[in-house]
């Protein structure tokens, strides 16, 4: 029996698998599940609704936005098989620089009459430039000096934080122009976050840039032999990650109305967590922006939910850590199932 069926056995299976839901859907269900859990707990413990509170939801998404913008860059870095630990510090540095360009000139005009408020574009561009430069340095160190991404971006994480402090000797930069703070007002951070997400979702899926990013993560040697300029592409991806950390810094400064060297502390880890919860594999080659956006939302819902229930911040961290690890465990399990071979 089964003599001339050749590989029909192999043919039948994956068709079934194809009908399986995309990873994003299952993560989205987890998000809904967590939100509903808080809803139930909310009624049980506080006699109040968690979800039926638009103000809380807005704050929740606002909190997510800044980390989300960073996470979109970090996701791309992780897809190439790398890591970016510097994004929180780069955020702080760019927040300082951008704020220094966005200060009101009222006070100083007494001394320097020629001084005027700069239009909002200038601080924005300055911030993006600083972020991109930091990313460029990361990328160059990794691609050309062959330093492992973990070390290169760890160095940048420490240095950029130092630069943020040194820039004003640790003083916060406040009194920013209304034009500039408008960037961070209302729902603007959310709009920026979602726009960036859509942009890079499309870039990863439909452009050569995206295909190369996945290819390098899946097998850098094969990518090189396929004619891809792996080094140049890595520099580009890290620069984009830096640029997005810079954008996050601008938004954070605008929203807070001040630039402070302590901003964005540990954000790099939240961003990595968002990517990993969203299904991006630290092994490289796998990951989607949509997943990261949902991953960031899960972090936001948890933060908001625990605060709503009055859970102590220390305990929040304990639970958050457990959830990050659980996400990776699930991912590993999924991969092992995928990798069945004869």
């Amino acid at each position, binding site marked *: 029996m089964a003599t001339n069926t050749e*590989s029909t056995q192999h*043919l039948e299976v994956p068709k079934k698998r194809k009908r399986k839901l995309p990873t994003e859907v299952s993560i989205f269900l987890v998000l809904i599940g967590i939100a509903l859990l808080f809803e139930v707990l909310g009624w049980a413990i506080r006699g109040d609704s968690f979800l039926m509170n638009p103000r809380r939801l807005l704050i929740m998404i606002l909190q997510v936005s800044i980390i989300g913008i960073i996470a979109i860059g970090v996701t791309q870095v992780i897809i190439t098989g790398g890591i970016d630990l510097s994004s929180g510090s780069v955020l702080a540095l760019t927040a300082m620089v951008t704020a220094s360009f966005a200060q009101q000139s009222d006070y100083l005009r007494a001394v320097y009459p020629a001084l005027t408020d700069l239009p909002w574009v200038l601080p924005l561009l300055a911030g993006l430039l600083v972020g991109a430069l930091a990313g460029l340095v990361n990328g160059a160190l990794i691609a050309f000096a062959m330093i492992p991404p973990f070390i290169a971006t760890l160095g940048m994480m420490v240095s950029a934080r130092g630069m943020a402090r040194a820039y004003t000797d640790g003083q916060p930069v406040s009194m920013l122009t209304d034009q500039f703070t408008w960037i961070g007002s209302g729902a603007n951070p959310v709009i920026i976050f979602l726009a960036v997400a859509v942009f890079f979702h499309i870039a990863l899926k439909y452009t050569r840039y995206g295909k190369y990013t996945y290819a390098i993560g899946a097998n850098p040697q094969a990518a090189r*032999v396929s004619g891809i300029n792996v080094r140049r592409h890595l520099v580009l991806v890290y620069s984009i990650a830096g640029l997005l950390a810079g954008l996050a810094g601008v938004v954070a400064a605008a929203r807070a109305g001040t630039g402070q060297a302590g901003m964005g502390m540990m954000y790099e880890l939240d961003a990595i967590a968002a990517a990993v919860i969203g299904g991006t594999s630290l092994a490289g080659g796998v990951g989607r922006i949509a997943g990261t956006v949902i991953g960031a939302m899960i972090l936001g819902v948890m933060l908001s939910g625990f605060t709503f229930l009055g859970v102590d911040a220390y305990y929040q961290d304990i639970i958050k850590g457990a959830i990050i690890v659980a996400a990776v465990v699930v991912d590993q399990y999924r991969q092992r199932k995928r990798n*069945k*071979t*004869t």
Partner: protein
Amino acid sequence: MEPNNYSETLNKDRAGFLLEVERVRKTFPGVVALDNVQLKVRPGTVHALMGENGAGKSTLMKIIAGVYIPDQGEVRLNGKTLHLHGPLGALEAGIAMIHQELNLMPYMTIAENIWIRREPLNAFGMVNHDRMNRMTETLFERLGIDMDPEMDVRRLTVAGRQMIEIAKAVSYESDVLIMDEPTSSLADREVEHLFRIINDLRAQGKGIIYITHKMDEVFEIADDISVFRDGQFIHSAAASDMTSDEIIKLMVGREVTQMFPKEEVPIGDVVLSVDSLSLDGVFENISFEVRAGEILGLAGLVGSGRTNVAETLFGVTPPSSGRIVIDGKEEVISSPHQAMLRGLALLTEDRKETGLFLGLSVIENMEMAVLRDGYTRATFVEQHRLDQECDSMTERLSVKTPSMDERIGNLSGGNQQKVLIGRWLMTKPRILILDEPTRGIDVGAKAEIHKLITELVRNGVAVIMISSELPEVLGMSDRIMVMHEGRVTGFLDRSEANQVNIMELASAPVQPPVAHD
């Protein structure tokens, strides 16, 4: 499944089997990898397992070695049923396996690799390195291996590492030794060495299960042969009772008439000419030319620099000196991209290392090389056009895949290789370099790839084909260039070449298998 004459032929001379596998079934999510399979190994014999890729040989071996747990059936060693829960259990029971993938730790010494988990300890519970090295030397003496136990494994060639794997497996003193394509990275001289070791083990009464795709090896070394196809046990008999045609027929379930469909095609102008090309410390003074419609075979032992020459031509490792002339114009090729722009394509030697994007889909693997040139409009990839071209390429190469979105890791080796060939054909190369184009793939796919190469040269492509399989080189090439230790030792015409004069040019004084870099 046909009733087999196994018991009649084999039970006659010996009643007791060393290893018996019965009614084993193993499924992976959705696939039946093995169905009601049996295998019986006599002590003091080499039992060859034959079958195309995907026939279930490796799965069965992994079950015997405790890597997989079968859904059904049993494995008996010396009449006792084994209940294995992992590779360690199998080792302790007396079954050792040399895996197809090399599993050595590059930054540890040879001795440390061999005795890992079994290191001799001194009174303080620390590893006794002197004794470990002496144990290694004793083992090497017995196996006739000439290597320094304290050398780091990363300095060895693939062939050297393979020998260490073999030595390690032997060091377990197991009753059953499983070898999964042990010769795929060995040159002929090393294969002979391996066979001496196997003969030794056989004389000691061990049972050796030997998986290979190479027909000549089977008849040289095997006592018994079992054939598998599509996860089923097909037939088992003494090697002396079978012919290679019969085996191939059993393996594929149809007749493969012509392995090397060499066809005389008109040979055109010189397309590529290489003049005293050198790469410091790797190869030197390489000069040759290839014409349109010509297949230039590149023979030589593993480590002779064949692959390095290919990689240099393709810009992976730019040369330190020498000239590359394409269509009469001298070219500087310093990256694969530049090579591609000049009409070169390279199918690399190691599918997994430098070819496949294992986690990505079939189409993503196939389209990767052409994305550079065209196929984008306003930075967006023209996916629709690409889809069509990939579809027709898939059809042309008769790649068997459930869909273009299937992960390439789930395809068989032959189909993976076809996808990679498709990747390069889509770039419409004029000079195609094929490095081991049929390594580790089954007979059917092999013949198809040979046919395809013939078709390409008919269309005027110049082909450089590197292969460790002499019959393949002899069967396909118009001319053969032989290399030894980074130098060209001779050219042979199709009419004059044979296994003997190739091997003469390819071999040289014995030297320890240390990597050239």
